[in-house]
Structures are given as structure tokens and as C-alpha cells.
């Protein structure tokens, strides 16, 4: 009896306590709502977000597409990693996109998405992103949200400082994160100082987006980290941070953190163009690939390249200058006016901001403190415009708003610090949860920031989300910067590591978004334009199935006369010309993936049946009320079978 009462009292206490807790929780959320926080991120069902946000997937190798302010994920664009869902890297058409001088490399570490620009303003034509591990740059076509081109960077040991673009997308830049022997060869690692070099590459982008490694600059063997191109008055220049000016080759954690200052390399690329015109380059023999997706043929093509033009700074005066910058600087960010160049002095307690006009004056006055391999080192005092103090620990990156403020992420103290351009005073700060790396303001690294939000791209989430085992979701945070004080609005999970991101008003992209591929423009070698062109053709043990799909059948859907040992290519054309009606194609036992064929496109799945039998194939993408009926059979007979090749639908 007593114990029952005790139990009952306990239960009562627990209930009352939990009710209080619920009340308190309720109070908290009311406090948040009182500032209209929920309303600011609420996008009513059936209505659109204001901005697209493109985040790198970091080690996932892909790109995430989100809406802002809702933080809703719309799409994962496959770029550097195979994606079985869309047959990216599995279909015959997309396999060439992964070609490198090391063979097919079906993964990379994607870091910095950059939207193409016209006159220094994001124009939404393309999104570029770097592959960090096996040095590459990809170009994504933002009319189709597909990867259009991937180019390998020769003479590079890791493409981190990339793909920062010039004001009119004349060039995409790349710098080697790890210095390596160039050309690469078998040398002792501890011969670093003697043999290791860095390169800075300029990739020309033509009007159709086609990329070409136009020239490289051979630079001392530091580690080149990040970059930004000049704009306005500094258009024609590009800036690259470096660390490990100590040239250590082991325990860099300690050994590359000795010098009080490392360097920003300022490269005058207009000057470089003059030197190239004058023939003052060396031609290095090397090997790299350019892979592009032929839009008309719906097919990837690999081109091998064997030469690259290289400029040597000591032979090209005025091409490169070093700007001393404390300490192991990471980001280098140019303000909207193009005059100020802010460096994230990762191990420094300040953000040094250099002045472009002072840099030009110092160059004119030959205000050099020394030179390294023919590269003049400017005097810090001659070029620095100011130092932002009290920026927290581990300042990394700065983006800008449209009202004269910079926003710097500080990794170690996990916060965003807002400061005023010109006075360099800190005016506001807000914590990030947790360990912020890059940050992004719509247009925040262009001439015309749209402002409104800053997105914190965080490395760690710890306790912010429901746990999912040892690995937790990655995440970004949306912060309102329209007022004087920054205000946290929303946490939202992201794919992979949201390393860096770009945001752009939705209407710029939306109006160009394609709905279908016109079937009459489909020049794929194995396309069918009408059902009556479908057929099956045998050539030795190669069997090509020219197949069509439309709601809700395949033609042909009964195929006989296939033999064990055959190599079967299903060339599937989606005859639909209606928006949002892809068809899938999956065949039992396929060792690769499904196909997901967009309206008007043709894709190919290679299939090598190993056993006799009858194999179903079917549509995987729910397409109509009769989707379940969208299927077929393929009969596989023995090697020496005399079953004739035949095919039909509806007979």
C-alpha cells in the first residue's frame, strides 16, 4: 500500500515536472517566434524560395541545391562521384566524364562552388567547382543542373585554391595546395626545398563555357591555399594565399606554423596574357584530360592533352608579387569595390586588409623588402590598409554585404564577426554551431552583394540534431543580416560537408531552367526518334537494343535470342516531351546501375548476362497510373542456342 502511494506520488511529480518542462519549451519557442523568426523562413506550400543555394558536398564529391530561406534540399547534382541513381559514371555516356591521366577516378573532394559572372555580378549561367584530390575543375550547366565538363589540372598536387573566377568569367583559377616536384618525378621527400614547386593555373572559359588550361605560373614550393580574383580597379589581378613558406615536408602542424607571416601571391594575369602573346612561355610536356558532355549527342567525350604553357616569374617581371600576410592565411577575399583584400590570418589574431591602390603604389615605388626566386616581396606596412582586431580565434573567410560590412568566420571560436570596411571596427558577432568554415552571403564575393542572409557552413553539429550513430549530419545555418544585429533563423542539414556555397536570387536561374531535351535535336548515335525505329541489332557477341520509352511502355518489351557471353547495350530513348517525366530502366542482375532518362534524352546501360533464363526489366520512376505495368522480358539462352534474335511489343 505504502509503496503504491510512493509510486503514485512519484508519477505525479514526474507528470507535473514534465508539464512544466513542456511549458518552458513552449515559452522558449514563443520567444523565438516573437521575433517572427519562423515566418522569416516559412515558405508556404506551393510557393517558391527567394534564393538558390549551391553547396559543395565536400567529400561526397557532389553539389547540393537548396532553397533559401527554407533550407529545403531540391537536388543533389552528381559531379565528381559516381551516382547510381542517375547512372552518373555508370552509363556508357557518362563514363568518359571521370577520365584522368590516372585512368577513371570516380570520386573527388569538392570544395568551392562558384557561379559564373558578367561584369563582376553572378549571372547564373554555370557553376564551377574544384576537385581537390585528383586536381580537376568541373563546370555545371545551370539550365539543366548537370555536369557539362570536367578538366584535369596538370602539374598540381591538389587543387584547393580553385575555381575562383574573374569578373567576366574570362578565367577560372587553380592553385596547387600541395607543392610537388614539377614535372613530377621520383625524388627523396626531404629534398622538398630543392625539388618541390607550386603552380598557379589560369583556365580560359570561352563563350560556350568550354575550358582550357591556358597557362600556368611556376611558383616557389609553398602550399597555395585559396584565391579570389580582383574586380573593378583590381580586375586583371588574382590573389592566392599561401602557407608553409617554411617549406616543411613533415609534421606541418608544427613545422609550417613557424613564420610570423606567409604570403598572398598577387598575379597580374593581364600581364601574363602579354607574356604569352610575346612567346615568353615554356612548353611543359605533361598529360591531362578534358572531358565534356556533348549536349546534342547526349554523350561524354574525353580529350587527352599533352602540353601546357608555363610562365616562370623570374623571366617575367611584373607578373607575380608576394604580399606578406600573418599567419598561415587561409581565405583571401576582395570587397565589392575591388579595393580591399581581406585575408583570413588563420593563426593570427587579426584580419589584415590590404589596399589594392597601395599595392600598385608600392610596386611603382619598388617598395620591396626582398625577393624570392625573382618574385618581389612587398613591404607589409606599405600595402596594409588596416587590421580588424578582436575577430575571434582562427579567422578563415570573409564575405561582404551591400552596406559596407565584412563578415568573417572564425573557426576556433566558432562565430561570425561583422566589421566595418574602412574603420575596421567589429560591430557585431554571433556564435555558429559549431566550428564554422566558409560562410556565404548571396553575391557576397561579387561586385553586387544581394545581402539579406549569411549562411554559416559548419564542420560539426554535435548535439544540434537527432543522433544517427557515430556520424552526425553536416549542417548549415541561416542568419538574417538585414538588421543591425545578426539573427539566427534556421539550422538545416546538408549533404556531405557544406564546404563553401554560393547563393543567387531564384529568378536569375529559374527563367533559364530547361524542361525537356527536344527530341528532334537529339543527335545521339544510338537514339530512336520514333517507335518504328526501335530494333535489336547483333554484331558478333555485341547486341544493341534500340529501345524507346513513353507512358507507359518500352519498345521492344519482349526480346529473345540473347546468349550467355553476349554484351548487350540497352540504348534507351525517352520519347516523352513533357516536363518532369523521366523514365527509369533497370534490368535484373545488372552490375552497374539503373538508368534515369530525361524527356528527349538517350542513355545506355551495358549488360552482360551470365546465366540462362528470362530476365525482367522495368521502369523505376513512377510515371503514370500504369507505371507498374511498364516492364518487359529479355530471354537469355545458352551459348550455342539457335533461338533467333527477335523483338516486339504488343504482339
Amino acid at each position, binding site marked *: 500500500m505504502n509503496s*503504491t502511494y510512493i509510486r*503514485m506520488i512519484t*508519477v*505525479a511529480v514526474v*507528470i*507535473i515536472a514534465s*508539464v512544466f518542462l*513542456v*511549458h518552458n519549451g*513552449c515559452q522558449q*519557442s*514563443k520567444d523565438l*517566434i516573437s521575433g517572427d523568426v519562423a515566418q522569416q523562413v516559412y515558405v508556404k506550400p506551393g510557393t517558391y524560395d527567394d534564393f538558390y543555394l549551391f553547396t559543395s558536398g565536400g567529400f561526397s564529391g557532389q553539389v547540393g541545391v537548396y532553397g533559401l530561406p527554407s533550407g529545403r534540399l531540391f537536388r543533389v547534382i552528381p559531379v565528381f562521384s559516381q551516382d547510381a541513381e542517375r547512372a552518373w559514371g555508370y552509363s556508357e555516356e557518362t563514363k568518359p566524364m571521370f577520365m584522368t591521366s590516372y585512368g577513371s577516378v570516380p570520386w573527388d573532394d569538392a570544395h568551392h562552388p562558384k557561379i559564373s559572372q558578367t561584369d563582376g555580378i553572378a549571372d547564373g549561367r554555370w557553376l564551377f567547382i574544384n576537385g581537390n584530390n585528383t586536381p580537376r575543375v568541373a563546370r555545371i550547366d545551370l539550365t539543366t543542373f548537370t555536369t557539362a565538363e570536367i578538366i584535369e589540372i596538370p602539374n598540381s598536387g591538389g587543387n584547393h585554391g580553385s575555381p575562383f573566377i574573374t569578373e567576366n568569367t574570362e578565367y577560372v583559377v587553380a592553385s596547387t595546395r600541395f607543392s610537388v616536384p614539377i614535372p613530377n618525378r621520383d625524388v627523396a621527400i626531404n629534398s622538398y626545398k630543392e625539388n618541390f614547386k607550386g603552380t598557379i593555373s589560369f583556365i580560359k572559359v570561352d563563350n560556350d563555357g568550354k575550358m582550357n588550361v591556358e597557362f600556368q605560373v611556376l611558383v616557389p614550393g609553398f602550399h597555395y591555399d585559396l584565391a579570389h580574383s580582383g574586380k573593378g580597379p583590381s580586375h586583371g589581378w588574382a590573389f592566392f594565399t599561401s602557407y608553409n613558406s617554411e617549406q616543411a615536408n613533415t609534421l606541418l602542424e608544427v613545422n609550417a606554423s613557424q613564420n610570423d607571416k606567409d604570403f598572398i601571391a598577387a598575379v597580374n594575369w593581364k600581364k601574363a596574357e602579354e607574356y604569352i602573346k610575346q612567346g615568353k612561355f615554356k612548353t611543359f610536356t605533361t598529360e591531362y584530360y578534358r572531358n565534356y558532355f556533348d549536349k546534342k549527342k547526349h554523350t561524354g567525350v574525353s580529350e587527352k592533352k599533352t602540353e601546357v604553357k608555363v610562365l616562370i616569374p623570374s623571366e617575367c617581371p611584373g607578373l607575380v608579387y608576394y604580399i606578406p600576410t600573418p599567419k598561415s592565411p587561409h581565405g583571401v577575399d576582395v570587397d565589392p569595390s575591388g579595393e580591399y583584400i581581406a585575408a583570413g590570418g588563420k593563426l593570427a589574431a587579426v584580419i589584415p586588409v590590404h589596399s589594392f591602390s597601395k599595392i600598385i603604389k608600392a610596386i611603382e615605388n619598388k617598395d620591396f623588402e626582398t625577393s624570392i626566386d625573382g618574385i618581389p616581396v612587398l613591404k607589409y606596412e606599405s600595402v596594409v590598409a588596416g587590421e580588424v582586431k578582436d575577430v575571434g580565434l582562427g579567422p578563415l573567410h570573409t564575405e561582404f554585404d551591400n552596406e559596407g560590412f565584412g563578415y568573417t568566420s572564425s573557426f576556433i571560436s566558432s562565430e561570425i564577426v561583422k566589421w566595418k570596411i574602412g574603420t575596421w571596427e567589429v560591430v557585431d558577432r554571433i556564435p555558429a554551431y559549431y566550428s564554422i568554415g566558409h560562410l556565404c552571403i548571396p553575391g557576397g564575393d561579387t561586385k553586387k552583394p544581394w545581402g539579406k542572409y549569411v549562411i554559416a557552413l559548419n564542420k560539426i553539429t554535435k548535439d544540434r540534431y537527432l543522433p544517427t550513430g557515430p556520424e552526425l549530419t553536416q549542417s548549415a545555418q541561416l542568419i538574417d543580416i538585414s538588421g543591425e544585429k545578426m539573427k539566427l533563423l534556421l539550422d538545416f542539414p546538408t549533404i556531405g560537408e557544406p564546404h563553401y556555397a554560393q547563393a543567387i536570387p531564384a529568378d536569375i536561374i529559374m527563367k533559364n531552367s530547361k524542361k*525537356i531535351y*527536344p*527530341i*528532334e535535336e537529339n543527335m545521339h548515335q544510338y537514339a530512336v*526518334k*520514333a*517507335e*518504328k525505329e526501335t530494333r535489336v541489332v547483333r554484331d558478333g557477341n555485341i547486341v544493341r537494343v534500340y529501345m*524507346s520509352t*513513353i*507512358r*507507359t*511502355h518500352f*519498345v521492344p518489351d519482349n526480346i529473345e535470342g540473347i546468349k550467355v557471353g553476349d554484351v548487350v547495350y540497352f540504348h534507351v530513348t525517352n*520519347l*516523352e*516531351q*513533357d*516536363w518532369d*517525366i523521366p523514365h527509369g530502366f533497370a534490368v535484373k542482375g545488372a552490375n552497374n546501375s539503373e538508368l534515369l532518362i530525361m524527356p528527349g534524352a538517350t542513355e545506355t546501360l551495358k549488360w552482360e548476362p551470365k546465366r540462362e533464363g528470362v530476365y525482367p526489366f522495368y521502369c523505376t520512376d513512377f510515371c*503514370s*497510373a*500504369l507505371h507498374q505495368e511498364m516492364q518487359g522480358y529479355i530471354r537469355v539462352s545458352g551459348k550455342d542456342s539457335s533461338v533467333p534474335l527477335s523483338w516486339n511489343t*504488343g504482339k
Partner: protein
Amino acid sequence: MKKTNKLLLGLTALLLISTTITSCRGDSKSDKPQELGSKPDISAWEMENGFGMVKTKLNLPPINPELAKKGEKLFESKCASCHKLDEKYAGPAQRDVLRRISPEFFINMVINPDENIEKHPHIKELLGIYMLKMTNQNVNFNDARQILEYFRLLESELPSKTN
């Protein structure tokens, strides 16, 4: 006794929690419910000629065989996956389509299937039979006009109508 006590406790808890939840709802907005079941208006013209860009009777010249040839090609690439001339397939047989609908309706349906499926009672009826929405094959007026010519030719070759 025990049971009553437990029941009381349970009720109290329920009451407390539900009060809390109600009080939390506070200022949620309610959207106007959409009107359901309202019949779309359909005019006599739309009944005969469907919904779409063709809003007046076409002034059709005599059949142009060259145009019809082009129309046949378009029909094969954009329509024949679902429509045969003489057999019921994914959609109805089409040889005598112009005996069933007006040329204007033909063009409106080819260019603008979605709206007709949504609004036109005859097309709705067909959806009930075939269980498949006719696809929008991204056909422009010129293309639709050529396909129409193909079916005008086919219609002219049919045995003449008996009244």
C-alpha cells in the same frame, strides 16, 4: 481504489498536457480552404472545340498533301508511341479522329492536353477509360497544323459518311 487513483492521475495528466498543447498553438494562421467540387464553366464553343489557343473556326484551305506528309512524320515521332491508326493502344485509334472531333479541337488537344484533360467532359471520360493522361509532347501550332493535315488526308480517304 487503486484503479480510481490511477485514473484520476491519468486524467489530470491528460488535462495538463492538453492545456499546454492548446496554449502553444496560439497564433497559427488558417488558410482559406479551397473550394472543392465546383464545376468549371464550359461554353458551347469549348464543348465543340476544346480549350487552347484556337478560339475561332479555322479557315482551312483544300488538303495539301505535302503538309500532310510532314504531319505524318511528326505523328510517327511524337504520337505513334501511344496512338495507332486502327487499333486501340495506349490511347484511342486515330484514323477517323476528325469524324469524332473538330479540327479546332484536334489542334487544341494536341498542343494543350493538360487543360483539356482537366476541364473537358469528353476528355475526362477518355481518361476514365484509358487510365492514362495524354502526354504533353511539346508540339507547337505549326507542327499541330501539319499533323492535322495528315488526318484530314486520312479522313478524305475514308468511305463517305452515311447519314
